[in-house]
């Protein structure tokens, strides 16, 4: 039990937290219609994955997963930039941030 306390909780607790975060992000993507909140929910899901990777990396004493987390953060930054600029462009064309607006692309 003393060894357990080195890192806080046990492995299953961290897995539970990251699964909960991922599911909350998925529910947010499915329920909300606001494009900005949608992008934020995607960030939430990416962070859940990051938390899981860091947990396993720490528990198995291998640093390579944390490099992957670093790259995920890099890609997430690029993705947020592009997503927000697409959002600005869409808002300029239709004066709305409803995700349903993209149905117009259906032709």
């Amino acid at each position, binding site marked *: 039990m003393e060894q357990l306390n080195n890192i806080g909780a046990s492995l299953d607790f961290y897995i539970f937290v990251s699964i909960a975060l991922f599911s909350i992000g998925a529910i947010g993507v499915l329920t909300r219609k606001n494009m900005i909140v949608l992008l934020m929910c995607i960030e939430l899901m990416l962070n859940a994955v990051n938390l899981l990777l860091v947990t396993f990396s720490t528990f198995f004493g291998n640093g390579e997963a944390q*490099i992957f987390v670093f790259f995920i953060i890099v890609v997430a930054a*690029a993705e947020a930039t592009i997503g927000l600029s697409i959002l600005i462009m869409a808002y300029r064309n239709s004066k709305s941030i409803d995700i349903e607006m993209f149905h117009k692309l259906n032709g």
Partner: protein
Amino acid sequence: MSLQMISVILGSLTIASALMVILSKHPIRSVIYLVITFFFISAMYILMNAQFLAIVNMIVYAGAIMVLFLFVLMLLNLNKEMEPETNRMGIISALVAGGTLFLVLITALRDSFQYGKGYTMVKVPEAGLVENLGKLLFSKYLVPFEISSILFIAAMVGAVLLAKREKQIID
């Protein structure tokens, strides 16, 4: 108060603030709650001795990306009637789908739950320290690191091109 207590409190606070992100009606409140969530996640990284990632998470996520979100929110100047309405049927079906996803993931990872029960760190983990990560990043993962800089340039050029105001034809 043991470290285990602290991590359980941190985890529940993280889940609560993540819930507030999708529950709050106003997007600015969502952004603030998301920043709080990222700070809690950074605290969990520190608890797991992943110091480098904790700092990077705080700087890049809570600093840069969230400021970008706030900037766009202020730029768009949204008001109350702009908020798109959601239908009740969609919310219920999304809740069912999300809950099912949660259950499926829990069941899929149940084996690692049982495996992790006895699996504890023997010593303080040193994988997440800056020195070890830097050695890895600049030897084995040097090429992806350089490619990520090209990705950033592409993202920057793309964002500028996409958000640039097109030339209006005035007749």
